[in-house]
């Protein structure tokens, strides 16, 4: 669903032609960063010199906490892993978690938003109250609670990624819900909806055929910005020790947590590289999201220039 929308809205060239000057630079920078990220994630096993949990080669153990060298471009960690390999494999984990969580958020948030906005009455009131409560909850704490519940305190490879993804999903469903609901409320009294009803279309059909296609305009923007947020939440979970077992998958936040002591000892390579990876990916997605926002909704330019995370009430 999302990809279809994006493909229709994002025929690259057309979008680029709508931008100019600084905006175009922003968009291209963002797209390049995202493209590199996806490329690295896809080809991590080919690009990485070693495995993600490998700490010896040819029966020779790697020396822990060694600075960058010809063998280990980004140095080695306290557990003797190759930092470069972990950074590269980390992209894979991040992309998987984003993909799962964005898909789940769309699948849950969009139908609920449609239902709430279109049907209204008590369903709307209840859902809005619940979503507002979830939205008001500090997102990291919510993610922690959910990941405890899903993972039950332990985490395997897929289980860890899944629990992180579900935790992130719960955090972002309210945003999709809110946007879709408000847009639905705005368009449901349009004449074309009445027309559809007169021709005998069922409520479900009206909701998903007629209204959905008219409220999805801002979804690509939310998707990109949430994807950026999702990486930050994933990293934060990992940083607090709630991510994925280090032998199962590489995760930047977890590696940063392990690098905390290194920092106090002046060892910089274990933190700088994974940290920079997070910053670049989040930056890329945020830049794409903002350019999309400005080009897709030129009228909303000043209104939405903050981030989708900000309340719609900002300038009311």
């Amino acid at each position, binding site marked *: 669903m999302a990809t279809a929308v994006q493909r229709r809205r994002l025929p690259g060239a057309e979008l680029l032609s709508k931008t100019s000057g600084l905006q175009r630079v922003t968009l291209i920078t963002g797209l390049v960063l995202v493209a590199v990220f996806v490329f690295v994630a896809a080809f991590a096993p080919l690009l990485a010199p070693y495995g993600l949990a490998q700490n010896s080669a040819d029966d020779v153990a790697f020396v822990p906490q060694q600075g960058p060298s010809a063998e280990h471009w980004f140095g080695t960690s306290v557990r003797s892993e190759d930092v470069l390999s972990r950074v590269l494999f980390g992209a894979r984990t991040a992309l998987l978690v984003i993909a799962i969580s964005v898909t789940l958020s769309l699948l849950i948030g969009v139908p609920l938003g449609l239902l709430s906005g279109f049907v209204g009455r008590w369903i709307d009131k209840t859902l809005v109250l619940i979503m507002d409560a979830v939205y008001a909850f500090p997102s990291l*704490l919510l993610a922690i609670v959910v990941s405890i519940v899903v993972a039950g305190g332990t985490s395997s490879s897929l289980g860890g990624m899944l629990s992180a993804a579900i935790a992130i999903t719960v955090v972002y469903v309210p945003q999709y819900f809110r946007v879709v609901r408000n847009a639905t409320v705005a368009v449901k009294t349009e004449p074309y909806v009445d027309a559809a009803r007169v021709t005998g279309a069922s409520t479900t059909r009206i909701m998903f055929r007629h209204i959905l296609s008219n409220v999805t305009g801002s979804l690509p923007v939310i998707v990109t910005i949430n994807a950026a947020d999702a990486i930050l939440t994933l990293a934060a979970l990992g940083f607090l020790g709630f991510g994925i077992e280090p032998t199962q998958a590489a995760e930047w936040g977890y590696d940063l947590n392990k690098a905390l002591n290194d920092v106090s000892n002046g060892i910089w390579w274990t933190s700088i590289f994974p940290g920079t990876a997070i910053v670049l990916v989040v930056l890329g997605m945020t830049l794409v999201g903002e350019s999309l926002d400005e080009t897709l909704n030129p009228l909303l330019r000043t209104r939405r220039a903050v981030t989708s995370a900000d309340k719609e009430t*900002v300038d009311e």
Partner: protein
Amino acid sequence: MRGGGSRQVALLRYLLIRLLLILPTAWLLVTVVFFLMRVIGDPISAAMGGRLTQDQIEDRKEAAGLNRPILTQYWEYITGFLHGDFGRTQDNQAISDVVITYGAATFELVFWGLLVAFAVGVPLGRYAATHRDTPSDAFLRFSAVLAYAAPVFFVGMLLKLIFSVWLGWFPVGGRASTDVELALQHVSPKTNILIIDAILYGEPSYVLDVLEHAVLPAVALGLLTGGIFLRLVRVNLIQTLRSDFVEAARARGLSTRVVTGRHAVRNALIPIITVMGMCIAMMLGGAVLTETTFEWKGLGYQLAEYLRARDFIAVQGIVAFIALVVAVMSFVVDAVVALIDPRVRF
């Protein structure tokens, strides 16, 4: 336009309704946390899974009252909550005590963080708005995005690496030097907000020590929301500068500087207060990470410790408490906005 009297009535009614809305919100949050933690898995097995035999787990569950019907537990939890009883940690501390003691430290950190956020965001946002579309505006906007893109703990680690380890300007972590912290244990009345404790103690070097420890964590946390403030001030200032009353002020012959400073900035701050509600939630989340990074022994640091020890009853209590604080703060924010912004409709 309505008269002043009816506006006041409407305002009171709005505040009252908003106040009453906290209750279901808070109740919902506490309930969700409770059931998430209990129904799907019980805290003891989750904590001790693999480390204890089934019998030992059963004994512990018995002791913690987890074998009784879930609704009985829920009822006790809610009534306990109303009496300020959040339950006990595995090492038998009252969670309400933990929350009060360490909450003060977190409050202090968030306060410093907000201070940095305002100090960075407002003037730079104003500068960016008045220099719109110049290279410096572009640079500031990019920096704001960068501040958003960098995880607070990575920024914290960078600051630590550069300013404590390499340059040696600031301490590596903690809220104060060990001797200062020990000395401040004896100050009375003890607030556990160290800067206040240090002032009460009356030793200037202690105050300085506490401040030195606060700088890096405050900057790390402050940059997190400072970028958001910058963009909000910029966007709203640009909008306000276009509005009629600014034109009118200009027409009266006031200089741009006065118009911006006196009239526009004040109006551009209102949206900041609105977003403050969200920022407080963000700050508290950020505080958990900042405290872990800098070993700042506040509620977030404690929460991470309990998480690591798999003490989920303690986690549940702290999370529920933070949720309550967020619910109350968002009410306060709405109330402040309603009081100062005459355009808010109820």
